[in-house]
């Protein structure tokens, strides 16, 4: 039932049943002149069909690198140095490029913050969408075109038949993101990885996109990894949430539990600093210090230099503490009733 799990073998084995994606101890490092950056450092989680996992973190927490690692789009100097990614029983970390090419776009689709990373600016929308279908299936053009039109209609683009003939620059930002989402849906993937897909959009447009994605996961049973820095959006979208800090998941569990009763001081700090959690006009509760430099992390718990709960014990690496599918990495967690 839970996305993130203890690494004990027994629990892991039982939870893997029914999971379409299972990530174990994933490590993605970047070799830089200044040293080795451990962008993702020992990440584990599971995802079932139809489930929405919110992956939350600040810049540099490794949330995007996690998404890119799953589809193996990490480029040098980055490298997956350890761990397993099992997608529908297939091991991805060792898969050949040809195998990955067959999976990407067909079974695993990705939506980026900037839709122009998906769309080719010099090709018409229909050309691009038909190509995305024919890359994986032998389908007559007319049929592929009809599928593309239906996909555009599904994400709420008015008069899709005419819009198929348009170029990306003829769409607004919100409409482009819809086209990118429609393209991701073309082959009815089992998993969509959405990396900050609504961050660049206005509030009213964001709400439209969120409504579409919600409807789609309901109708097609697609699993979604929703990567975002925005706890409020994740809270409204996800079934499970995993909070990342300095390359690790520091807390994870069902969204209501994590948001309403956070255990890790970092999660609690993030939630507590939101203006809506503070009395109007008063100072906001704040996490002091800066987002960490991955080359210069404190020993033990990476959050300890910014944490009010920290003491000598935190110089050691905290393991995963779990209760009823709500896990955290902290020696001095916030009280559950707090």
């Amino acid at each position, binding site marked *: 039932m839970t996305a993130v799990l203890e690494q004990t073998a027994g629990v892991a084995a039982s939870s893997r049943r029914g999971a379409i994606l299972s990530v174990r101890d994933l490590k993605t490092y970047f070799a830089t002149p200044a040293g080795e950056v451990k962008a993702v450092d020992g990440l584990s989680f599971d995802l079932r069909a139809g489930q929405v996992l919110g992956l939350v973190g600040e810049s540099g927490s490794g949330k995007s690198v996690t998404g890119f690692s799953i589809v193996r789009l990490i480029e040098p100097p980055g490298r997956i140095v350890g761990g397993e990614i099992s997608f529908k029983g297939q091991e991805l970390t060792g898969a050949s490029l040809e195998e990955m090419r067959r999976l990407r776009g067909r079974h695993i689709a990705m939506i980026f913050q900037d839709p122009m990373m998906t769309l080719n600016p010099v090709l018409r929308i229909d050309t691009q969408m038909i190509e995305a279908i024919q890359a994986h299936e032998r389908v007559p053009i007319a049929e592929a075109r009809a599928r593309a039109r239906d996909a555009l209609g599904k994400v709420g683009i008015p008069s899709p038949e005419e819009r198929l003939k348009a170029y990306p620059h003829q769409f607004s930002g919100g409409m482009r993101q819809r086209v990118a989402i429609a393209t991701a849906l073309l082959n009815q993937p089992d998993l969509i990885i959405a990396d900050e897909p609504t961050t660049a959009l206005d*509030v009213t447009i964001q709400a439209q996109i969120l*409504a579409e994605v*919600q409807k789609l996961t309901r109708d097609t049973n697609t699993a979604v990894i929703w990567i975002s820095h925005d706890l409020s959006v994740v*809270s*409204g979208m996800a079934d499970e949430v995993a909070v990342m800090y300095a390359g690790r998941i520091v807390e994870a569990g069902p969204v209501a539990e994590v948001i309403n009763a956070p255990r890790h001081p970092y999660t609690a700090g993030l939630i507590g600093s939101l*203006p809506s959690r503070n009395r109007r006009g008063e*100072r906001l*509760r704040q*996490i002091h210090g*800066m987002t960490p430099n991955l080359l210069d992390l404190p020993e033990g718990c990476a959050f300890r230099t910014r944490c009010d709960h920290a003491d000598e014990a935190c110089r050691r690496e905290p393991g995963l503490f779990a209760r009823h599918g709500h896990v955290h990495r902290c020696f001095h967690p916030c009280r559950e009733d707090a």
Partner: protein
Amino acid sequence: MVEQALAPEVLEPTVANRQPVITLRGVSRTFGTPPSALARFAERFGGAKSKPTIVHAVDSVDLTVRKGEVLGLVGESGCGKSTLGRIIAGIMPPSSGEVLWRGRRLSELSPRERRAAKLRIQMIFQNPFASLNPRASVAEIVGEAPRIHHLIEGDEGAYVDEQLRRAGLDPSFKSRFPHQFSGGQRQRIGIARALAVQPEFLVCDEAVAALDVSIQAQILNLFMDLREQLDLTYLFISHDLGVVEHLSDRVAIMYLGRIVEEATVEEIFSRPNHPYTQALLEEIPRIETQKRAYTALKGELPSPLAPPPGCPFHPRCPNAFDRCKMEKPALRDVAADHRSACHLNDR
């Protein structure tokens, strides 16, 4: 939250009676190119009339910012909120209309007074990476303007240190360059630079939008502390309603170059009048609502190049009727210190 009936007499002494710092009267700003000389020449000799491409970024706005208040300015991208902020900050002249500084027209002021007035309003920008000169040290960035304007009495080094400390930066970093700082620290440098010329009014244009969540709270706290210490007035421009609700005394909502609603923060959030404000409040994601169903407002922000006739919001408005398609609604009082531009109020 206890809902209070805000009787006018209760409000008067706190908000309405304060000295206006900036008053805008019918301020508009257009961008675009008038027809070229060649096109005008052709037109004169019977050629086709060329259509100028003109955007009304700000369209006849009346607005007052009073001493000591925080006015939140909210709107979606392209609504003209940044342009309005720049006009108020004095770094962009309006195409038409008047800007009054403490009740006096800018055009009436002597050049010397006008310069002094401009210095009293400073701006904090959204992007702390683009708004700092990458080749100047922090000491130069913060010290340059007060030196030129002869605001420093005594040692410049000590003066710069004081500004940095006030913005929450360690003065020992002052010989460093912007690229050596994180986003949050750079925003503090921008704040120190603005404070160095001793302003009374800060225009913050999406000043925390580019920052990480944990850093955002620190900068917002800094703004609130400075307000108390220095008795500052703010125009706080943001698309983030949560931030605006927290910080502001009054809120103005913009749509397609026009202010569609303006009221105290309590009024806006408890009794929004304009359908656009209502939709914004409805759709803002809130952490309190888990696994909610989003119901989206139809349509998109129309292009400001071709704004719809009548009320600019009518194509998306769930309650629009015939009059909305023809007649632009004026901003009018709907309650004490609460103005809204909607024909529904006449029904």
